[in-house]
């Protein structure tokens, strides 16, 4: 399909922290988030004079895993270089990164395109580099007073994954990012829940116009927002006949806007040269020894084949490692029996209820969902009661309480369907008909609304416990008896 005149073109540079134990070039622990500033630093990651880097093997292994999973070509020889620039968060005034000899080149990631179906987003390269420290800006946004630096983050291993400009909308960019995150999590090399573990720079242009680099996007949702802002901004400029400047812009997350970087930041002359304190890598042969786990696409196919999930449910369930694992735990005891209900209840209901409460799946015990699904499957409770049970569980967890079991909740709230207890339903039906002679008349006259009205009345009397199908059948019978 040929691109339209105002086609949006997006390429991403994604920086992900690799989940190693120690930093990229020193033995400092990477587990710094709950500790005070400058407590996870040593002469190497503080850039003290005389200190030298020692490369973490696991970081390279992790990056190789990613390269293999993303179908990249690992170069025969790769090398670290220095990227020289001054900034207070950069302890050595250069970043050790990879420049003309990255670890891997090429590769692709498949995403669901806006038109539906899968589309390959080509990758340019993957390289390994060190994270700088973290700056806290004192003063206000317009005019800083000074900066405070915490070097705990300095030296955390990153991989930078650079895509070709193959995405055609902000939405596709978000999908790319989600798919990438899922893949990295499946590989157990990345923890997306750690704050700041992923950062994105995006290149975005409208076909035929200059491109703009948007830096500093630090959240998954931020990518789509920042790019939507840019699309509107750029299209407006074009509509007014103005030129789009080739420039770097910063994304201001809090305000949801992008802002032009100052001219000094635009001039880059990083003076790259090979890092003389490290030796080159020749690790291509390691690829043979890397056994990849099942990746999101394969798992999605399996969920459809093995559990009969719909494409959409399978996509949702496998889109996050934790969710996929959760689903499989829920249905483990009876795959064919539980899967159809469980996939709907997890992919649709549970996710929705969690999002509504801003809760993480971590809190939820898969056994509780299994219990819930079993109750639904046995017809013990109605769908409506099922939602109520789920809400009770989540609300209890949210309050930090031990959640009751679904069985206990059903019992305590007396939510069990009155199915089987036909006496109670029959009584309620008789009552409802007797109390509403007008409805009986209407029904006799063939007015369809009358039946629904009566169903509602019976439901009210049975407090929702009656199974709707069963109720319909019994009501029709009772009406028939009365000659209707």
């Amino acid at each position, binding site marked *: 399909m040929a691109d339209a005149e105002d086609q949006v073109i997006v390429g991403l540079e994604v920086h992900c922290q690799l989940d*190693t*134990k*120690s930093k990229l070039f*020193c*033995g*400092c*622990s990477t587990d710094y988030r709950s500790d*005070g*500033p*400058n*407590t*996870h*630093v*040593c*002469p190497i990651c*503080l850039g003290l004079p005389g200190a030298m880097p*020692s*490369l*973490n*093997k*696991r*970081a*390279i292994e992790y990056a190789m895993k990613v390269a293999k999973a993303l179908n990249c070509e690992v170069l025969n*020889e790769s090398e670290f270089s220095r990227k020289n620039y*001054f*900034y*207070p968060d950069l302890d050595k005034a250069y970043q050790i990164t990879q420049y003309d000899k990255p670890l891997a080149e090429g590769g692709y990631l498949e995403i669901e395109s806006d038109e539906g179906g899968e589309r390959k987003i080509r990758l340019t390269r993957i390289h390994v580099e060190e994270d700088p420290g973290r*700056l*806290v*800006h*004192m*003063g206000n*946004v*317009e*005019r*800083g*007073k*000074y*900066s*405070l*630096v*915490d*070097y705990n983050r300095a030296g955390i291993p990153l991989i930078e994954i650079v895509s070709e400009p193959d995405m055609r909308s902000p939405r596709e960019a978000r999908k790319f990012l989600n798919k990438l995150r899922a893949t990295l999590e499946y590989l157990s090399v990345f923890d997306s829940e750690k704050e700041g573990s992923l950062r994105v720079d995006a290149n975005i242009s409208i076909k035929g116009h200059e491109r703009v680099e948007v830096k500093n996007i630090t959240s998954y949702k931020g990518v789509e927002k920042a790019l939507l802002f840019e699309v509107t901004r750029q299209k407006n400029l074009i509509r007014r006949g103005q030129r789009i400047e080739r420039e770097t812009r910063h994304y201001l997350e809090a305000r949801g806007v992008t802002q032009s970087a100052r001219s000094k930041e635009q001039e880059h*002359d990083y*003076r790259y040269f*090979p890092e003389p304190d*490290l*030796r*080159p*890598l*020749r*690790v291509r042969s390691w690829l043979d020894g890397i056994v990849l786990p099942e990746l999101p696409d394969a798992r999605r196919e399996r969920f459809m084949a093995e559990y009969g999930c719909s494409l959409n449910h399978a996509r949702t369930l496998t889109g996050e490692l934790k969710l996929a694992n959760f689903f499989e735990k829920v249905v483990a005891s009876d795959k064919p029996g539980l899967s159809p209900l469980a996939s709907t209840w997890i992919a649709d209901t549970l996710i929705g209820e969690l999002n509504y409460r801003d809760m993480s799946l971590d809190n939820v015990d898969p056994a509780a969902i299994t219990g819930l699904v079993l109750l639904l499957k046995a017809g013990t409770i109605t769908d409506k009661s099922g939602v109520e049970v789920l809400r009770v569980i989540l609300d209890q967890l949210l309050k930090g309480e031990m959640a009751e079991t679904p069985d206990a909740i059903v019992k305590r709230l007396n939510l069990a369907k009155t199915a089987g207890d036909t006496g109670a339903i029959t009584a309620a039906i008789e009552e409802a008909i007797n109390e509403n002679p007008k409805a009986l008349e209407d029904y006799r006259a063939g007015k369809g609304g009358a039946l629904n009205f009566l169903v509602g009345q019976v439901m009210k009397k049975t407090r929702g416990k009656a199974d709707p199908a069963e109720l319909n059948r019994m009501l029709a019978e009772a009406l028939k008896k009365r000659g209707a």
Partner: protein
Amino acid sequence: MVTEKDVQHIAGLADVGIDDKELGTFTHQFNAILEYFDILDRVEGNGQATRDLYNILREDEIEPSLPQEDVLRNAPAQEDGFIKAPRVM
């Protein structure tokens, strides 16, 4: 030939500062030195550095970090465990 403007640009890139008094001298010296460096234009060869060492790696093991007071001791200005630095905004 480098000009005074070039030298000023380089001083800016290197953040070493330069004042007008020095500019002429530095420019003059740079031209003499760079002219001497031009002899490298005559060098022939394939350009690949030969390395005897590859894959020098360490295991992913945690080693102790410095005590925070040692980190901060040499920093001229600090605040609440952070190191104070010039503003960037």
